């Protein structure tokens, strides 16, 4: 049965005009004023890190470390004597940051006890190639800038980053996307855990060279966002100088809608997640615009609106596990009244999410209260969701009691949360602050992406006021000779490659695989060397090899393919056998080609021997009692099945098939 609050959720979802991603069309996004921009990050495949000489790309298990170091991050004052919003929030969280260090992957630079060494030239060269491939205006001199991050993900409290170029563009199928800037920066730590007031980071990834490509908010549908992201990824891959694999490429996606604001979804690790994340974010923003309208219609006065709260004696509620937990840890149970907020807490925001989740997320991040951290008067369990780890809901009588203590009115809403004394103030401020935002619409924030396509609050969106020059680095001139040197070695632009693929007749669905794996140079090389139609080579990769691994790294290296073709030719085998041999090479890259022939049971037969089997098999088929309705077709299949092993490598299968069909149809 659908509870009344779930009914409200469904009602508000309709009010927001939410539709599933697959049912949305161009009109949906035009109506909502969808706009999306990207910040695409890509690790460069250098041997060493960007500002120290530690090796890049070596990762350890989180529990395998040599030492730990503790730091705290303090906000620094901005020009106006104000703290940046993010800075203030991070400081409120009073996090103790623990860095795990392994000797092999970190030196004193990583934990900020040594100034930077000069910037890695290899990273600059690799980065410059990508900057040129994006057709950017290349700067005359690099200036290393510090970009503040107070979450602790970088021990200095800032990321060293440098702009290589600005203002470029690239085409997607529907429009031209403009690039704001392209930079090379140091990668951050990997987060190990974040519990209460302690956040633990591992420093192995820290300092690896990372590029960042920032676009204008030119993408007008979720699909365009994904396509643009693919394009930027292809550009990076086409240089052949970037890392691949888990975490090597990530993107931040900015979304805004008409009347909303820029919200940044951080750390999206798969491009395939972009459509649902941006789609849901657009509707999340729209739901806040509806909430704003709703609150306006209730004529609540924002200037005097305040939450009220009281501490709730633990014995007032029925015994339940969460009460035991609170008692044991000596925490307090706090009831909060939100005047005039009835039907807001259960308001739709995202699939399976309500406005109350916005508050719960912030309580976790800002007040460091682990979830589940609260219950509210509009709590319900989605009828189609599993709720095993959720605290038991309160009964109607219990809420009546809480409302009584808070002297709440009918039109109010209540939150019940649990906290230690030291986090109480921050928690109350957090609730007040988020509720106040409801009057204004969409708060500026960065959000963390979840695999289900929804997002959770990560932090307040930082302003532009967090950049300043790195006093530890000198400017580096970018000479014309250097630019030309890189230009000389540069591959074709990605759009030129796409045109080339189309000209070869390679179907569009195969482009992604080829560009993602940067196979164009190999396809060209193999086709030329062995005099094969490039389309055939392209499809050998995009269909046959792709089917062997999916999204992982290439299971058979292009060099190996070329060797295989040489081998097949030298043995005077037909090309068909290449397809048959590939799975064995994927399983064991070191296997000898001749062993593969043994494994697939190849035997040498001459053409006449194969062809003379056809009439015999045809005769045999005629003697079968049951026959298919589609007789010539199934007979051909049957005969080919019998002949395949015999013919494979000895005679093109297509030719065998033609002969079989000729034999079958001869009598008709």
């Amino acid at each position: 049965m659908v509870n009344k609050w779930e009914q409200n959720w469904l009602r508000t979802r309709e009010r927001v005009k939410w539709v599933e991603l697959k049912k949305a069309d161009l009109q949906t996004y035009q109506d909502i004023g969808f706009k999306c921009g990207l910040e695409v990050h890509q690790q460069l495949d250098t041997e060493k890190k960007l500002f120290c000489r530690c090796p890049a790309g070596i990762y350890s298990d989180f529990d395998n470390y040599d030492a730990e170091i503790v730091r705290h991050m303090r906000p620094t004052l901005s020009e106006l004597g104000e703290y940046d919003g993010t800075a203030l929030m991070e400081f409120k969280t009073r996090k103790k940051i623990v860095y795990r260090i392994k000797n092999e992957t970190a030196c004193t630079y990583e934990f900020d006890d040594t100034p930077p060494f000069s910037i890695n030239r290899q990273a600059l060269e690799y980065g410059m190639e990508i900057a040129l491939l994006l057709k950017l205006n290349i700067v005359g001199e690099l200036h290393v800038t510090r970009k503040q991050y107070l979450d602790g993900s970088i021990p200095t409290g800032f990321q060293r980053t440098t702009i290589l170029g600005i203002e470029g563009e690239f085409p997607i199928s529907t429009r031209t996307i403009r690039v704001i800037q392209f930079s090379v920066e140091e990668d951050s730590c990997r987060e190990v855990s974040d519990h209460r007031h302690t956040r633990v980071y591992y420093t192995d990834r820290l300092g690896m060279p990372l590029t960042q490509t920032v676009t204008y908010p030119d993408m007008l549908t979720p699909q365009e966002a994904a396509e643009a992201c693919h394009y930027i990824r292809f550009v990076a891959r086409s240089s052949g100088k970037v890392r691949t694999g888990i975490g090597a490429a990530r993107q931040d996606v900015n979304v805004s809608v008409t009347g909303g604001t820029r919200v940044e979804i951080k750390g999206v690790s798969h491009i395939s997640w972009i459509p649902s994340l941006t789609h849901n974010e657009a509707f999340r923003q729209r739901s806040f615009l509806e909430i704003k309208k709703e609150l306006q219609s209730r004529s609540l006065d924002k200037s005097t609106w305040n939450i009220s709260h009281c501490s709730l004696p633990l014995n007032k509620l029925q015994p339940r596990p969460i009460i035991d937990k609170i008692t044991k840890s000596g925490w307090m149970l706090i009831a909060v009244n939100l005047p005039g907020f009835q039907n807001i807490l259960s308001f739709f925001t995202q699939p399976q999410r309500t406005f109350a989740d916005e508050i719960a997320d912030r309580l976790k991040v800002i007040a460091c209260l682990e979830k589940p951290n609260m219950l509210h008067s509009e709590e319900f369990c989605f009828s189609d969701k599993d709720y095993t780890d959720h605290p038991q809901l309160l009964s109607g009588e219990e809420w009546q009691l809480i409302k009584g203590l808070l002297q709440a009115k009918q039109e109010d809403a209540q939150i019940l949360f649990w906290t230690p004394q030291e986090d109480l103030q921050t928690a109350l401020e957090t609730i007040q602050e988020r509720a106040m935002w409801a009057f204004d619409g969409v708060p500026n924030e960065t959000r963390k992406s979840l695999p289900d396509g929804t997002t959770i609050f990560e932090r307040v969106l930082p302003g532009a006021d967090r950049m300043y020059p790195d006093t530890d680095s000198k400017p580096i001139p970018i000479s014309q000779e250097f630019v030309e040197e890189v230009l000389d070695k540069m591959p074709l632009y990605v759009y030129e490659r796409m045109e080339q693929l189309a000209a070869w007749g390679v179907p569009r669905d195969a482009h992604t695989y080829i560009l993602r794996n940067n196979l164009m140079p190999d396809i060209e090389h193999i086709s030329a060397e062995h005099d094969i139609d490039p389309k055939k080579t392209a499809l050998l990769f995009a269909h046959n090899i792709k089917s062997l691994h999916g999204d992982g790294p290439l299971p058979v290296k292009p060099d190996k393919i070329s060797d295989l073709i040489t081998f097949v030719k030298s043995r005077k085998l037909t090309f068909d056998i290449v397809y048959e041999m590939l799975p064995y090479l994927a399983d064991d890259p070191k296997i000898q080609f001749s062993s593969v022939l043994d494994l697939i049971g190849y035997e040498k037969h001459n053409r006449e021997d194969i062809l003379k089997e056809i009439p015999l098999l045809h005769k045999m088929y005629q003697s079968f009692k049951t026959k298919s309705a589609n007789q010539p077709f199934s007979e051909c299949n049957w005969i080919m099945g019998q002949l395949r092993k015999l013919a494979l490598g000895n005679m093109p299968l297509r030719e065998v098939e033609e002969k079989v069909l000729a034999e079958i149809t001869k009598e008709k």
Partner: protein
Amino acid sequence: MLDIFKGYKGRAVEVLKSFKMRVWGNCTINTTRGKFEGIILPRSENDDDKHIVLKLPTGYNVGIDIDTITGMKENSFKEAHYKIPEKEFPYTPGLPKVKLLGTGGTIASRLDYRTGAVIPAFSPGELYGAVPELAEICNLDTEKVFAVFSENMGPEQYIKLAVSIGEEIKKGIDGIVIGHGTDTMHYTSAALSFMLQDLPVPVVMVGSQRSSDRPSSDAALNLMHAAYTAGNADIAEVLVCMFGPTSDEYALLHQGTRVRKMHSSYRSTFRTIGETPIASVKRGEIKPIKTDYNRRRDDKKVKVYPYFEERIAMVYYYPNMHPDMIDSLVDNGYKGIVIIGTGLGHINKPVYPAIKRAVAKGVHIYMTVQTLWGFVHMFVYDTGRDLMSMGIVPAENMLPETAYIKLGWVLGQTTDPEKVRDMMLTPIARDITEGEPYNGYLIFQGGIPEVEEFLKTFHK
């Protein structure tokens, strides 16, 4: 003349002039590499004259090669003004009264994001804005005694500082904090240890290893530790208060004469040599490590000896040192030399004649050790005995820098060899100790299993 080309020189200025451009102008620059828009920033004077620095609207800085410029146009202009808004430092009854004396190092600062400049914060109000926690620790007053870089600190500053501190103590104060650059902090702490004797309150020197403009700076925590120590510690000594481990955990309070900067960049760079630190401090808690230190008094009395002879030198001995190294000092009128010898306090024979000549000319020569840890022992080998017979005085286990400062201070008061010797070898503030404790020398060696276990268990 108004400098509108801040830091720019040579051809860069010509280009700026030719397009009628100025620093702080928000402009459009057309180049052969495309169009750039942003604010023209000042340029560091040490950088070349071939580029113009631009702050992009996204906050990043880039340089434009002047040879690529085809056109420039100023769209608007807004000069930056560096000013830090002050908040009044709140007075809290019951909290100790602490005076912060500034010497020129940056203790706290704030950023100007428009230009990227770092603006120092110093007045109580500015410091309160940067480190508001100070108001919970003490009632703070500040005074800028002078403004010099750490490396330029010298006798003139030591004397000025000692006199200022003496005056503050006489006026009545619960503790003194001295903000100081870290490079030469241990020279100044040694000087103050000799110049200020029988202190009634703590004199705490503090600095930072990571500038205060960065979120991970040690400056704020150091300042809090120092202010707490000055206001509350029962230790009436000249102390250096800096990070114990590199982690943000606690600070160590080092005796001013036994401390040394031991790493070019670590936060935990200051170490007590040949002894243990006096105490450790965390906010709200001072844990004594030693017990035999001078206790706080409330009599506002202190002995100030503001003397220093400048013509003294330190000579770091190396194999194949020639006698003219010593001769040239003597010929230039130097009155005292601290030699930093090898091993137990040795130098080679070819230098002997120069030593003899120096002593004969009345130059006071004292021997310390390059090993830093351990005593000078000149009786063990003939070399040592020879040197002593020539008149070199072993300076026990005084640190080289401390011996240098002490010799300057002593020679500022007397040149009588016996008196000098007597003063040099009479410990004043643990500058010489009677022996070295078992835990006075600890340099752990990485890689050894038990050390690695220690490092994994405790925050370094």
